[in-house]
Protein backbone atom coordinates (compact mmCIF):
# COMPACT_ATOMS: atom_id res chain seq x y z
CA UNK A 1 0.00 0.00 0.00
CA UNK A 2 2.44 2.57 1.29
CA UNK A 3 6.16 2.11 0.93
CA UNK A 4 9.07 4.31 2.01
CA UNK A 5 12.43 3.39 0.61
CA UNK A 6 15.62 4.92 1.88
CA UNK A 7 13.82 8.17 2.62
CA UNK A 8 15.30 11.35 4.12
CA UNK A 9 13.49 14.50 5.13
CA UNK A 10 14.67 17.92 6.25
CA UNK A 11 12.70 21.12 6.91
CA UNK A 12 15.63 23.13 5.61
CA UNK A 13 18.28 22.50 8.22
CA UNK A 14 19.63 19.09 9.26
CA UNK A 15 17.85 15.96 8.08
CA UNK A 16 15.31 14.69 10.62
CA UNK A 17 16.01 11.16 9.47
CA UNK A 18 17.93 9.55 6.65
CA UNK A 19 17.88 6.21 4.91
CA UNK A 20 14.56 5.33 6.47
CA UNK A 21 12.58 2.45 4.98
CA UNK A 22 9.11 1.27 5.89
CA UNK A 23 6.43 -0.91 4.33
CA UNK A 24 2.83 -0.74 5.38
CA UNK A 25 1.43 -4.09 4.29
CA UNK A 26 -2.32 -4.21 3.61
CA UNK A 27 -4.20 -5.19 6.76
CA UNK A 28 -1.29 -4.52 9.11
CA UNK A 29 -1.57 -2.69 12.43
CA UNK A 30 1.35 -0.50 13.40
CA UNK A 31 2.26 1.87 16.20
CA UNK A 32 4.82 4.64 15.85
CA UNK A 33 6.51 6.00 18.96
CA UNK A 34 9.49 8.13 19.77
CA UNK A 35 10.33 11.20 21.80
CA UNK A 36 8.61 14.51 21.15
CA UNK A 37 10.17 16.19 18.13
CA UNK A 38 11.68 12.99 16.73
CA UNK A 39 9.71 13.24 13.50
CA UNK A 40 6.63 11.06 13.97
CA UNK A 41 4.26 13.62 12.51
CA UNK A 42 6.70 14.25 9.69
CA UNK A 43 6.84 10.56 8.86
CA UNK A 44 3.06 10.29 8.81
CA UNK A 45 2.83 13.31 6.50
CA UNK A 46 5.17 11.57 4.09
CA UNK A 47 2.80 8.59 4.18
CA UNK A 48 -0.25 10.58 3.08
CA UNK A 49 1.49 12.82 0.57
CA UNK A 50 1.40 16.03 2.55
CA UNK A 51 5.20 16.30 2.40
CA UNK A 52 7.55 15.08 -0.29
CA UNK A 53 10.71 13.25 0.75
CA UNK A 54 13.89 15.24 0.17
CA UNK A 55 15.53 12.02 -1.00
CA UNK A 56 14.55 8.41 -1.44
CA UNK A 57 11.28 7.02 -2.82
CA UNK A 58 7.79 7.07 -1.42
CA UNK A 59 5.24 4.85 -3.16
CA UNK A 60 1.57 5.47 -2.46
CA UNK A 61 -0.80 2.79 -3.78
CA UNK A 62 1.75 1.77 -6.37
CA UNK A 63 2.54 5.29 -7.62
CA UNK A 64 5.62 7.36 -7.00
CA UNK A 65 4.57 10.18 -4.64
CA UNK A 66 6.96 12.63 -6.28
CA UNK A 67 5.21 12.20 -9.61
CA UNK A 68 1.66 12.82 -8.43
CA UNK A 69 -0.27 15.81 -9.75
CA UNK A 70 -2.26 17.91 -7.31
CA UNK A 71 -5.44 16.12 -8.31
CA UNK A 72 -3.77 12.74 -7.87
CA UNK A 73 -2.84 13.70 -4.33
CA UNK A 74 -6.49 14.57 -3.68
CA UNK A 75 -7.50 11.12 -4.88
CA UNK A 76 -4.84 9.44 -2.71
CA UNK A 77 -6.21 11.35 0.30
CA UNK A 78 -9.63 9.85 -0.28
CA UNK A 79 -8.15 6.41 0.28
CA UNK A 80 -6.36 7.43 3.51
CA UNK A 81 -8.24 8.55 6.62
CA UNK A 82 -6.10 10.97 8.59
CA UNK A 83 -6.35 12.14 12.21
CA UNK A 84 -4.19 15.26 12.44
CA UNK A 85 -2.38 15.90 15.71
CA UNK A 86 -4.06 19.31 16.06
CA UNK A 87 -7.38 18.13 14.73
CA UNK A 88 -8.45 20.67 12.15
CA UNK A 89 -12.06 21.40 11.27
CA UNK A 90 -14.23 23.85 9.41
CA UNK A 91 -15.10 25.94 12.43
CA UNK A 92 -18.31 27.33 11.01
CA UNK A 93 -19.97 24.00 10.28
CA UNK A 94 -21.64 21.70 12.81
CA UNK A 95 -19.83 18.57 13.93
CA UNK A 96 -22.05 16.31 11.82
CA UNK A 97 -21.17 18.11 8.58
CA UNK A 98 -17.51 18.18 9.53
CA UNK A 99 -17.48 14.45 10.07
CA UNK A 100 -19.33 13.88 6.78
CA UNK A 101 -17.00 16.22 4.85
CA UNK A 102 -14.82 13.48 3.25
CA UNK A 103 -17.96 11.89 1.79
CA UNK A 104 -19.24 15.21 0.52
CA UNK A 105 -15.93 16.12 -1.10
CA UNK A 106 -15.80 12.85 -3.02
CA UNK A 107 -19.42 13.17 -4.11
CA UNK A 108 -20.71 10.42 -1.84
CA UNK A 109 -22.86 12.57 0.49
CA UNK A 110 -25.75 10.11 0.05
CA UNK A 111 -23.88 7.55 2.16
CA UNK A 112 -23.60 9.92 5.09
CA UNK A 113 -27.06 9.17 6.52
CA UNK A 114 -26.38 5.48 6.92
CA UNK A 115 -23.40 5.38 9.23
CA UNK A 116 -22.97 8.92 10.55
CA UNK A 117 -25.36 8.33 13.44
CA UNK A 118 -23.78 5.01 14.42
CA UNK A 119 -20.30 6.43 14.21
CA UNK A 120 -21.08 9.49 16.33
CA UNK A 121 -22.74 7.19 18.85
CA UNK A 122 -19.63 5.01 19.07
CA UNK A 123 -17.30 7.93 19.75
CA UNK A 124 -19.85 9.39 22.19
CA UNK A 125 -20.75 12.55 20.28
CA UNK A 126 -24.42 12.00 19.41
CA UNK A 127 -25.45 14.79 21.78
CA UNK A 128 -22.91 17.21 20.25
CA UNK A 129 -23.77 16.62 16.56
CA UNK A 130 -25.12 20.14 16.09
CA UNK A 131 -22.31 21.97 17.93
CA UNK A 132 -19.53 23.61 15.94
CA UNK A 133 -15.92 22.50 16.63
CA UNK A 134 -15.04 25.55 18.78
CA UNK A 135 -17.95 24.56 21.02
CA UNK A 136 -16.48 21.12 21.67
CA UNK A 137 -14.11 20.07 24.42
CA UNK A 138 -10.57 19.02 23.51
CA UNK A 139 -11.37 15.35 23.82
CA UNK A 140 -14.57 15.71 21.84
CA UNK A 141 -12.64 17.29 18.98
CA UNK A 142 -10.20 14.43 18.97
CA UNK A 143 -12.99 11.90 18.80
CA UNK A 144 -14.62 13.86 15.99
CA UNK A 145 -11.35 13.84 14.06
CA UNK A 146 -11.20 10.04 14.36
CA UNK A 147 -14.81 9.73 13.22
CA UNK A 148 -14.06 11.92 10.19
CA UNK A 149 -11.00 9.81 9.35
CA UNK A 150 -12.94 6.54 9.23
CA UNK A 151 -16.31 7.61 7.80
CA UNK A 152 -15.37 6.79 4.20
CA UNK A 153 -14.08 3.41 5.36
CA UNK A 154 -10.71 4.13 3.72
CA UNK A 155 -8.07 1.54 2.91
CA UNK A 156 -5.56 3.10 5.28
CA UNK A 157 -6.07 4.94 8.54
CA UNK A 158 -3.28 7.19 9.82
CA UNK A 159 -3.81 8.66 13.28
CA UNK A 160 -1.44 11.11 14.93
CA UNK A 161 -1.77 11.02 18.71
CA UNK A 162 -5.52 10.31 18.58
CA UNK A 163 -5.95 9.82 22.33
CA UNK A 164 -3.83 12.63 23.85
CA UNK A 165 -6.86 14.42 25.25
CA UNK A 166 -9.23 11.63 26.23
CA UNK A 167 -9.44 9.51 29.34
CA UNK A 168 -8.38 5.90 29.50
CA UNK A 169 -11.81 4.41 29.00
CA UNK A 170 -12.46 6.49 25.92
CA UNK A 171 -8.96 5.64 24.62
CA UNK A 172 -9.81 1.96 24.80
CA UNK A 173 -13.11 2.57 23.04
CA UNK A 174 -11.44 4.49 20.21
CA UNK A 175 -8.75 1.86 19.86
CA UNK A 176 -11.40 -0.85 19.72
CA UNK A 177 -12.95 0.96 16.75
CA UNK A 178 -9.60 0.96 14.95
CA UNK A 179 -9.03 -2.71 15.78
CA UNK A 180 -12.51 -3.50 14.37
CA UNK A 181 -11.60 -1.72 11.14
CA UNK A 182 -8.27 -3.53 11.02
CA UNK A 183 -10.12 -6.84 11.32
CA UNK A 184 -12.14 -5.75 8.27
CA UNK A 185 -8.83 -5.53 6.39
CA UNK A 186 -7.91 -1.87 6.77
CA UNK A 187 -4.33 -0.85 7.36
CA UNK A 188 -3.79 1.14 10.56
CA UNK A 189 -0.86 3.36 11.59
CA UNK A 190 -0.99 5.17 14.92
CA UNK A 191 1.55 7.59 16.36
CA UNK A 192 1.29 7.72 20.12
CA UNK A 193 3.15 8.35 23.37
CA UNK A 194 0.79 6.24 25.39
CA UNK A 195 2.51 2.93 26.12
CA UNK A 196 -0.57 1.62 27.91
CA UNK A 197 -2.52 2.03 24.71
CA UNK A 198 0.03 -0.03 22.81
CA UNK A 199 -0.06 -2.74 25.47
CA UNK A 200 -3.83 -2.82 25.33
CA UNK A 201 -3.77 -3.15 21.53
CA UNK A 202 -1.23 -5.91 21.61
CA UNK A 203 -3.57 -7.90 23.80
CA UNK A 204 -6.23 -7.75 21.07
CA UNK A 205 -4.45 -7.78 17.73
CA UNK A 206 -1.11 -8.47 16.09
CA UNK A 207 0.50 -5.05 16.27
CA UNK A 208 3.94 -4.01 15.23
CA UNK A 209 5.68 -1.16 17.09
CA UNK A 210 8.02 1.25 15.30
CA UNK A 211 10.18 3.77 17.05
CA UNK A 212 12.00 6.82 15.67
CA UNK A 213 15.01 7.81 17.64
CA UNK A 214 18.04 9.79 16.58
CA UNK A 215 16.95 9.75 12.94
CA UNK A 216 16.67 5.97 12.84
CA UNK A 217 13.56 3.86 12.58
CA UNK A 218 13.56 0.74 14.81
CA UNK A 219 10.96 -1.87 13.96
CA UNK A 220 9.48 -4.62 16.12
CA UNK A 221 10.21 -2.74 19.32
CA UNK A 222 9.16 -4.52 22.50
CA UNK A 223 7.98 -2.34 25.37
Amino acid at each position, binding site marked *: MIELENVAYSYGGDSLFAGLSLQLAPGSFQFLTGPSGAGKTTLLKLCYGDLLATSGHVTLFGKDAAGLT*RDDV*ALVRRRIGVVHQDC*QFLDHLPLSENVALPLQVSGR*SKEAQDNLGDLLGWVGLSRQAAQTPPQLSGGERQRAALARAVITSPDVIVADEPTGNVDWEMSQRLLTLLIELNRMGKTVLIATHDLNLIRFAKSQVVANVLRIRGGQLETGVTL
Partner: protein
Amino acid sequence: MNPRVTQILGLLQGDREADRAVPPTGFTARLTVFTAAAMAFLAVFALALSVATGRLADRWSAELARTATLRISAPAGEGEAQVRAALQVLETTPGVASARALTPEEQAVLLEPWFGPDLPLETLPIPRLIEVTADADGYDATGLRARLQAEVPAAVLDDHTRWREPLVDAANRLRTLGWVALLLIGGAVAAMITLAAQSALSANAQVIRVMRLVGARDAYIARAFVRRFTLRAGLGALVGTILGLLAVAALPDGDDGGFLTGLGFSGAGWFLPLFIPPLAAVVAFLATRAAALRTLRTQA
Protein backbone atom coordinates in the same frame (compact mmCIF):
# COMPACT_ATOMS: atom_id res chain seq x y z
CA MET B 1 -21.65 24.86 -25.50
CA ASN B 2 -18.31 26.54 -24.94
CA PRO B 3 -16.79 25.01 -21.78
CA ARG B 4 -15.97 28.43 -20.32
CA VAL B 5 -19.61 29.44 -20.76
CA THR B 6 -20.80 26.23 -19.13
CA GLN B 7 -18.48 26.98 -16.27
CA ILE B 8 -19.90 30.46 -15.78
CA LEU B 9 -23.46 29.21 -15.98
CA GLY B 10 -22.57 26.51 -13.47
CA LEU B 11 -21.48 29.29 -11.15
CA LEU B 12 -24.90 30.84 -11.10
CA GLN B 13 -26.58 27.55 -10.52
CA GLY B 14 -24.22 26.85 -7.67
CA ASP B 15 -23.25 23.94 -5.51
CA ARG B 16 -24.78 24.32 -2.10
CA GLU B 17 -22.41 21.82 -0.57
CA ALA B 18 -19.12 23.23 -1.85
CA ASP B 19 -20.37 26.68 -0.91
CA ARG B 20 -20.91 25.75 2.69
CA ALA B 21 -17.27 24.75 2.99
CA VAL B 22 -16.22 28.40 2.87
CA PRO B 23 -17.43 30.31 5.90
CA PRO B 24 -19.57 33.36 5.29
CA THR B 25 -16.80 35.94 5.12
CA GLY B 26 -18.75 38.75 6.74
CA PHE B 27 -16.78 41.91 6.37
CA THR B 28 -14.86 40.92 3.29
CA ALA B 29 -18.21 40.14 1.69
CA ARG B 30 -19.65 43.51 2.54
CA LEU B 31 -16.45 45.19 1.47
CA THR B 32 -16.65 43.55 -1.94
CA VAL B 33 -20.29 44.40 -2.48
CA PHE B 34 -19.73 47.94 -1.31
CA THR B 35 -16.63 48.44 -3.46
CA ALA B 36 -18.39 47.10 -6.52
CA ALA B 37 -21.41 49.30 -5.86
CA ALA B 38 -19.40 52.46 -5.27
CA MET B 39 -17.29 51.85 -8.34
CA ALA B 40 -20.31 51.09 -10.52
CA PHE B 41 -21.95 54.29 -9.29
CA LEU B 42 -18.90 56.30 -10.27
CA ALA B 43 -18.68 54.42 -13.54
CA VAL B 44 -22.21 55.43 -14.44
CA PHE B 45 -21.28 59.06 -13.90
CA ALA B 46 -18.07 58.78 -15.84
CA LEU B 47 -19.98 57.11 -18.63
CA ALA B 48 -22.63 59.84 -18.59
CA LEU B 49 -19.95 62.49 -18.70
CA SER B 50 -18.18 60.80 -21.60
CA VAL B 51 -21.34 60.24 -23.58
CA ALA B 52 -22.76 63.71 -23.02
CA THR B 53 -19.56 65.61 -23.68
CA GLY B 54 -18.88 63.35 -26.60
CA ARG B 55 -22.23 64.30 -28.06
CA LEU B 56 -21.56 67.96 -27.41
CA ALA B 57 -18.08 67.91 -28.86
CA ASP B 58 -19.34 66.15 -31.97
CA ARG B 59 -22.07 68.73 -32.47
CA TRP B 60 -19.71 71.62 -31.98
CA SER B 61 -16.94 70.14 -34.10
CA ALA B 62 -19.38 69.52 -36.87
CA GLU B 63 -20.70 73.06 -36.76
CA LEU B 64 -17.23 74.49 -36.47
CA ALA B 65 -15.73 72.52 -39.29
CA ARG B 66 -18.61 72.85 -41.67
CA THR B 67 -19.84 76.44 -41.51
CA ALA B 68 -18.06 79.73 -41.94
CA THR B 69 -19.12 83.25 -42.84
CA LEU B 70 -17.76 85.46 -45.54
CA ARG B 71 -18.22 89.18 -44.89
CA ILE B 72 -18.05 91.61 -47.82
CA SER B 73 -17.86 95.31 -46.93
CA ALA B 74 -18.17 96.94 -50.31
CA PRO B 75 -19.17 100.52 -51.19
CA ALA B 76 -22.90 100.76 -51.91
CA GLY B 77 -23.80 99.56 -55.38
CA GLU B 78 -20.73 97.32 -55.78
CA GLY B 79 -22.08 94.82 -53.25
CA GLU B 80 -23.95 92.53 -55.64
CA ALA B 81 -20.99 92.19 -58.00
CA GLN B 82 -18.58 91.38 -55.22
CA VAL B 83 -20.96 88.81 -53.80
CA ARG B 84 -21.22 87.11 -57.14
CA ALA B 85 -17.43 87.12 -57.55
CA ALA B 86 -17.01 85.63 -54.09
CA LEU B 87 -19.62 82.97 -54.79
CA GLN B 88 -17.76 82.05 -57.92
CA VAL B 89 -14.50 81.68 -56.06
CA LEU B 90 -16.21 79.54 -53.46
CA GLU B 91 -17.85 77.29 -56.02
CA THR B 92 -14.46 76.42 -57.48
CA THR B 93 -12.86 75.85 -54.09
CA PRO B 94 -12.44 72.13 -53.35
CA GLY B 95 -13.99 71.18 -50.02
CA VAL B 96 -16.77 73.76 -50.08
CA ALA B 97 -20.11 71.99 -50.25
CA SER B 98 -22.29 75.04 -50.68
CA ALA B 99 -22.17 78.81 -50.43
CA ARG B 100 -25.19 81.04 -50.13
CA ALA B 101 -25.64 84.78 -49.65
CA LEU B 102 -27.85 85.60 -46.70
CA THR B 103 -31.06 87.39 -47.51
CA PRO B 104 -31.55 90.86 -46.00
CA GLU B 105 -34.20 89.36 -43.65
CA GLU B 106 -31.70 86.85 -42.31
CA GLN B 107 -29.16 89.58 -41.76
CA ALA B 108 -31.74 91.65 -39.93
CA VAL B 109 -32.35 88.76 -37.52
CA LEU B 110 -28.64 88.46 -36.84
CA LEU B 111 -28.29 92.17 -36.17
CA GLU B 112 -31.38 92.55 -34.05
CA PRO B 113 -29.62 92.24 -30.70
CA TRP B 114 -27.59 95.28 -31.57
CA PHE B 115 -29.94 97.55 -33.42
CA GLY B 116 -33.44 96.50 -32.51
CA PRO B 117 -36.01 95.07 -34.90
CA ASP B 118 -36.72 98.10 -37.08
CA LEU B 119 -33.34 98.64 -38.65
CA PRO B 120 -33.73 100.08 -42.20
CA LEU B 121 -31.21 97.66 -43.65
CA GLU B 122 -31.67 98.75 -47.23
CA THR B 123 -30.54 102.31 -46.39
CA LEU B 124 -27.39 101.13 -44.57
CA PRO B 125 -24.00 100.36 -46.03
CA ILE B 126 -23.84 97.16 -44.01
CA PRO B 127 -21.67 94.34 -45.29
CA ARG B 128 -23.18 91.37 -47.11
CA LEU B 129 -22.75 87.95 -45.51
CA ILE B 130 -22.23 84.62 -47.30
CA GLU B 131 -22.74 81.35 -45.45
CA VAL B 132 -20.14 78.77 -46.41
CA THR B 133 -20.69 75.08 -45.72
CA ALA B 134 -17.77 72.71 -46.05
CA ASP B 135 -18.06 69.08 -47.09
CA ALA B 136 -16.76 66.23 -44.97
CA ASP B 137 -13.12 66.80 -46.01
CA GLY B 138 -13.17 70.54 -45.34
CA TYR B 139 -11.39 73.20 -47.35
CA ASP B 140 -8.01 74.86 -47.01
CA ALA B 141 -8.84 78.13 -45.20
CA THR B 142 -5.44 79.73 -45.82
CA GLY B 143 -5.56 79.00 -49.56
CA LEU B 144 -9.10 80.30 -49.77
CA ARG B 145 -8.12 83.54 -47.98
CA ALA B 146 -5.27 84.08 -50.44
CA ARG B 147 -7.54 83.61 -53.47
CA LEU B 148 -10.17 85.92 -52.02
CA GLN B 149 -7.50 88.51 -51.23
CA ALA B 150 -6.68 88.54 -54.91
CA GLU B 151 -10.14 88.35 -56.45
CA VAL B 152 -12.53 89.88 -53.90
CA PRO B 153 -10.37 92.11 -51.70
CA ALA B 154 -13.39 93.36 -49.70
CA ALA B 155 -14.19 89.84 -48.45
CA VAL B 156 -13.21 88.64 -44.97
CA LEU B 157 -13.52 84.96 -44.10
CA ASP B 158 -14.64 84.27 -40.52
CA ASP B 159 -14.48 80.53 -39.85
CA HIS B 160 -15.68 80.84 -36.20
CA THR B 161 -12.56 79.08 -34.99
CA ARG B 162 -11.99 81.74 -32.43
CA TRP B 163 -15.40 81.10 -30.85
CA ARG B 164 -15.87 77.40 -31.16
CA GLU B 165 -12.44 75.87 -30.83
CA PRO B 166 -11.93 76.31 -27.07
CA LEU B 167 -15.40 74.92 -26.47
CA VAL B 168 -14.80 71.83 -28.56
CA ASP B 169 -11.45 71.53 -26.92
CA ALA B 170 -12.97 71.61 -23.48
CA ALA B 171 -15.65 69.11 -24.41
CA ASN B 172 -13.10 66.76 -25.89
CA ARG B 173 -10.98 67.06 -22.82
CA LEU B 174 -13.92 66.26 -20.58
CA ARG B 175 -14.72 63.27 -22.74
CA THR B 176 -11.15 61.99 -22.49
CA LEU B 177 -11.33 62.56 -18.75
CA GLY B 178 -14.49 60.46 -18.67
CA TRP B 179 -12.89 57.57 -20.55
CA VAL B 180 -9.73 57.71 -18.46
CA ALA B 181 -11.90 57.69 -15.34
CA LEU B 182 -13.74 54.64 -16.68
CA LEU B 183 -10.47 52.82 -17.31
CA LEU B 184 -9.15 53.76 -13.87
CA ILE B 185 -12.36 52.61 -12.26
CA GLY B 186 -12.22 49.30 -14.08
CA GLY B 187 -8.62 48.77 -13.02
CA ALA B 188 -9.39 49.77 -9.46
CA VAL B 189 -12.30 47.33 -9.29
CA ALA B 190 -10.17 44.49 -10.59
CA ALA B 191 -7.38 45.30 -8.14
CA MET B 192 -9.71 45.67 -5.19
CA ILE B 193 -11.60 42.49 -5.88
CA THR B 194 -8.36 40.57 -6.36
CA LEU B 195 -7.06 41.90 -3.06
CA ALA B 196 -10.34 41.21 -1.27
CA ALA B 197 -10.39 37.68 -2.68
CA GLN B 198 -6.79 37.11 -1.66
CA SER B 199 -7.40 38.41 1.82
CA ALA B 200 -10.41 36.09 2.08
CA LEU B 201 -8.28 33.22 0.85
CA SER B 202 -5.49 33.86 3.29
CA ALA B 203 -7.96 34.34 6.12
CA ASN B 204 -9.33 30.92 5.21
CA ALA B 205 -6.02 29.06 5.13
CA GLN B 206 -7.49 26.68 7.70
CA VAL B 207 -10.46 25.90 5.46
CA ILE B 208 -8.16 25.18 2.55
CA ARG B 209 -5.98 22.93 4.73
CA VAL B 210 -8.95 20.94 5.97
CA MET B 211 -10.52 20.61 2.53
CA ARG B 212 -7.27 19.35 1.14
CA LEU B 213 -6.78 16.95 4.04
CA VAL B 214 -10.08 15.24 3.26
CA GLY B 215 -9.25 14.94 -0.44
CA ALA B 216 -10.92 17.94 -2.12
CA ARG B 217 -9.60 18.92 -5.54
CA ASP B 218 -8.27 22.45 -6.13
CA ALA B 219 -11.09 23.23 -8.54
CA TYR B 220 -13.64 22.21 -5.93
CA ILE B 221 -12.13 24.49 -3.30
CA ALA B 222 -11.64 27.40 -5.70
CA ARG B 223 -15.20 27.19 -6.95
CA ALA B 224 -16.80 28.24 -3.69
CA PHE B 225 -14.58 31.32 -3.42
CA VAL B 226 -14.92 32.30 -7.06
CA ARG B 227 -18.68 31.91 -7.07
CA ARG B 228 -19.06 34.11 -4.04
CA PHE B 229 -16.89 36.92 -5.25
CA THR B 230 -18.40 36.88 -8.73
CA LEU B 231 -21.94 37.02 -7.41
CA ARG B 232 -21.05 39.71 -4.91
CA ALA B 233 -19.26 41.89 -7.44
CA GLY B 234 -22.15 41.48 -9.88
CA LEU B 235 -24.71 42.25 -7.19
CA GLY B 236 -22.80 45.25 -5.88
CA ALA B 237 -22.28 46.60 -9.39
CA LEU B 238 -25.97 46.14 -10.16
CA VAL B 239 -26.98 48.10 -7.07
CA GLY B 240 -24.41 50.80 -7.81
CA THR B 241 -25.47 51.04 -11.44
CA ILE B 242 -29.13 51.41 -10.53
CA LEU B 243 -28.34 54.09 -7.95
CA GLY B 244 -26.09 55.82 -10.47
CA LEU B 245 -28.80 55.78 -13.13
CA LEU B 246 -31.32 57.17 -10.66
CA ALA B 247 -28.88 59.90 -9.71
CA VAL B 248 -28.19 60.79 -13.34
CA ALA B 249 -31.92 60.81 -14.10
CA ALA B 250 -32.50 63.06 -11.08
CA LEU B 251 -30.07 65.71 -12.34
CA PRO B 252 -32.03 68.84 -13.36
CA ASP B 253 -32.55 68.52 -17.05
CA GLY B 254 -31.83 71.98 -18.54
CA ASP B 255 -33.09 72.88 -22.01
CA ASP B 256 -31.56 70.69 -24.66
CA GLY B 257 -29.58 73.42 -26.32
CA GLY B 258 -28.10 74.62 -23.02
CA PHE B 259 -24.40 74.23 -22.64
CA LEU B 260 -23.44 71.06 -20.78
CA THR B 261 -26.90 70.85 -19.25
CA GLY B 262 -27.60 67.63 -21.06
CA LEU B 263 -25.33 65.61 -18.73
CA GLY B 264 -26.99 62.24 -18.97
CA PHE B 265 -28.04 59.62 -21.43
CA SER B 266 -30.50 59.87 -24.24
CA GLY B 267 -32.49 57.18 -25.96
CA ALA B 268 -30.58 53.94 -26.35
CA GLY B 269 -27.76 55.48 -24.30
CA TRP B 270 -29.65 54.49 -21.18
CA PHE B 271 -28.84 50.85 -21.93
CA LEU B 272 -25.10 51.44 -22.01
CA PRO B 273 -24.63 51.34 -18.20
CA LEU B 274 -26.42 48.01 -18.06
CA PHE B 275 -23.17 46.46 -19.29
CA ILE B 276 -21.47 47.51 -16.06
CA PRO B 277 -22.75 44.73 -13.73
CA PRO B 278 -21.95 41.82 -16.06
CA LEU B 279 -18.57 43.37 -16.80
CA ALA B 280 -17.87 43.69 -13.08
CA ALA B 281 -18.89 40.08 -12.60
CA VAL B 282 -16.59 38.91 -15.38
CA VAL B 283 -13.71 40.95 -13.94
CA ALA B 284 -14.41 39.46 -10.51
CA PHE B 285 -14.62 35.96 -11.93
CA LEU B 286 -11.28 36.19 -13.67
CA ALA B 287 -9.55 38.02 -10.82
CA THR B 288 -10.80 35.65 -8.13
CA ARG B 289 -10.13 32.52 -10.15
CA ALA B 290 -6.55 33.58 -10.80
CA ALA B 291 -6.08 34.53 -7.14
CA ALA B 292 -7.64 31.29 -5.85
CA LEU B 293 -5.68 28.95 -8.10
CA ARG B 294 -2.47 30.83 -7.35
CA THR B 295 -3.04 30.65 -3.59
CA LEU B 296 -3.94 26.98 -3.77
CA ARG B 297 -0.81 26.18 -5.74
CA THR B 298 1.56 28.09 -3.47
CA GLN B 299 0.09 26.91 -0.18
CA ALA B 300 1.75 23.53 -0.18
